[in-house]
């Protein structure tokens, strides 16, 4: 074989093999695919929701605010709206209504440039909730009225119906309120949104309890508890257990009330809401007439 032929063999074999090897090499996945700044903002949102659940509103504010900054830098409109709503809800819960209104109004401005009806509905629901808390169910009903492009399923639809039910109840139409809340629970269950369904059941239990229909109230509260359990939503479970405790106590079922108070006490502690845990413990002590310790 001449040296020229060897060179040809070399060129014919080596170069294709190298090209093949290069194309088959294990290229590391792009960072953007697996872990982006969006994820960082998402983590902050989760942290904020957890902190809201444990009533640490100052800390929740910092988390949502930081998430908002990141979403804004990414021009992520959906994230920005969710962060603004979360910030507004934090302000609403700390009684800073003007700030809450302002934040919801920012969210509304952003959502009006969006073609996403879910986002629009989410903003309107938050504004309606605020109106309800301010004692203005008529304004809430206006905000909750169906729009042209109204969504007809999912969590936001369920929340819309639930808030409508709450508004109707505030206006004195209990039957209509109950029908809306049952519809809200149905919509939530159809969308596999157990926690949203539990919220509707919880409201139904509250209405029945305030109407002294304790058996019905217990039934709704148990439904709420089961729905929350299916999602391991601890703040919901704790609230449901406390509701069941109050209902049982009002119905004269002392033993059941004691059991529910004890469980809600543990559950609140587990969630980290020490004030609620202490209240449940105190209510349990009043009920039993003796100091209680961990079971």
């Amino acid at each position, binding site marked *: *074989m001449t040296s020229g032929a*060897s060179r040809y*063999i*070399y060129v014919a*074999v*080596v170069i294709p*093999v*190298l090209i093949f*090897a*290069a194309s088959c*090499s*294990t290229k*590391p*996945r*792009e*960072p953007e695919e*697996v*872990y982006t700044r969006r994820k*960082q903002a*998402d*983590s*902050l*949102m989760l*942290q904020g*929701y957890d902190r809201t659940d444990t009533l640490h509103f100052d800390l929740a504010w910092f988390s949502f605010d930081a998430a908002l900054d*990141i979403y804004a*830098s990414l021009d992520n409109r959906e994230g920005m709206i*969710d962060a603004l*709503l979360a910030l507004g*809800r934090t302000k609403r*819960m700390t009684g800073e209504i003007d700030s809450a209104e302002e934040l919801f109004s920012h969210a509304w401005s952003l959502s009006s440039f969006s073609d996403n009806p879910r986002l629009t509905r*989410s903003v309107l629901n*938050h504004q*309606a*909730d605020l109106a309800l808390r301010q004692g203005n169910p008529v304004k809430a009903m206006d905000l909750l009225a169906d729009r042209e492009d109204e969504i007809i399923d999912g*969590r936001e639809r369920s*929340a819309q119906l*639930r*808030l409508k039910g*709450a508004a109707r109840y505030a206006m004195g139409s209990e039957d209509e309120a109950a029908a809306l809340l049952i519809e809200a629970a149905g919509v939530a269950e159809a969308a596999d949104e157990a926690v949203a369904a539990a*919220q509707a059941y*919880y*409201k139904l239990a*509250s209405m029945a309890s*305030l109407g002294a229909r304790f058996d019905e109230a217990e039934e709704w509260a148990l439904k709420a508890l089961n729905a929350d*359990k299916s999602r*391991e939503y*601890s703040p919901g*479970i704790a*609230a449901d257990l406390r*509701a069941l405790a109050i209902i049982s106590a009002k119905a004269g079922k002392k033993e059941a009330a004691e059991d529910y108070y004890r469980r809600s006490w*543990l*559950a609140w*502690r*587990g*969630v*980290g809401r020490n004030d609620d845990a202490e209240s449940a413990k105190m209510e349990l002590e009043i009920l039993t007439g003796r100091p209680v*310790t*961990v*079971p």
Partner: protein
Amino acid sequence: MKFKFRHADKIVGLFTLVALLLLVIITVFAGVNNKWFTKKIYFTSLFTSADGLKVGMGVNLRGFQIGRVKNISLNADNRVDLDFYIYVTYHDRILHDSVLVLPSGLLGTSAALELYPGLVEGPPLPDGTFIPSTQTVEGKMLVKTRRVDRPAGGDAITDILTDLPEILDNLNETIVSIGNLTSSLETGIKGEGNDAFSSTVRNIEDISSGLDRSIRDVNDVTASLAALAVELEDPTGLVPTLLDPNGSLDTLLNDDNVLWDHILSILVQLEGAMAGVNSLSASLAGISPQMALTLDETIRSLKEAQKVMEGLQNNPLLKRGISKETVPENPGADMREDEF
């Protein structure tokens, strides 16, 4: 008859060429897979012990290998200096406040270090920067004050196991401080030593703050155990789901509540111990060897809790149902604030 290949030299040459080619290909593959040609950014860290550390072990971020340990050495202060590098592709994740963690695995320590990136916006840390580990006070505080992006979705068991070692360390430190205080008090009373009184006062301040921190930590663990107890009680809760995500409750319910009772007994012990600690810490007069005994009781309870949690976590059945990373979902406007 003499047997002869006509082109023997050429065939041997070809085989040699093919062998060389294969060697080159394998080398290229190995290089690419081991990222020999990828640019690396070097960092340093500090650990208290080299247990579980080894040269070449991976540095992971949320399960993805983003770098490796380059070197481990014992420094002049008997601490462990660790040099590691991050592939340049992931350099933008190494933000200010990032922390390096040696996770505990099923058989002692994990095969890779975990990096928790800082939550501070800004440019990535430059080459040669020191990144604290959770075995240093700085690293512990960064994690504790939630300034790092720690993977969400951890279950109660994992959370308890992550927090317990640090709490036990703090409690042990407090006990040692109490021991030192007792001897310095004696020295002060006897009028011996240099500046005995002021050093005693400083010790008291240190112990008080250390104790407050420990009490908060133990209260947190007690709350986590309470949450776990509730979850155990809940037939659709975390532990049953982990034991069998398909919903069969046999495994949990057939243990005659042994696990449930055990968790509750630990809670009772912790409650008792903490009541003691709280009453003793109410006044400085309470700082005495008796407090050390009470704290020791707390530590024993916590260690027992740790064993139970490890038992739960090491159960291979638990590995089946670990949940995926949670995506934030707006929980809605209204919370459960209704009257009953």
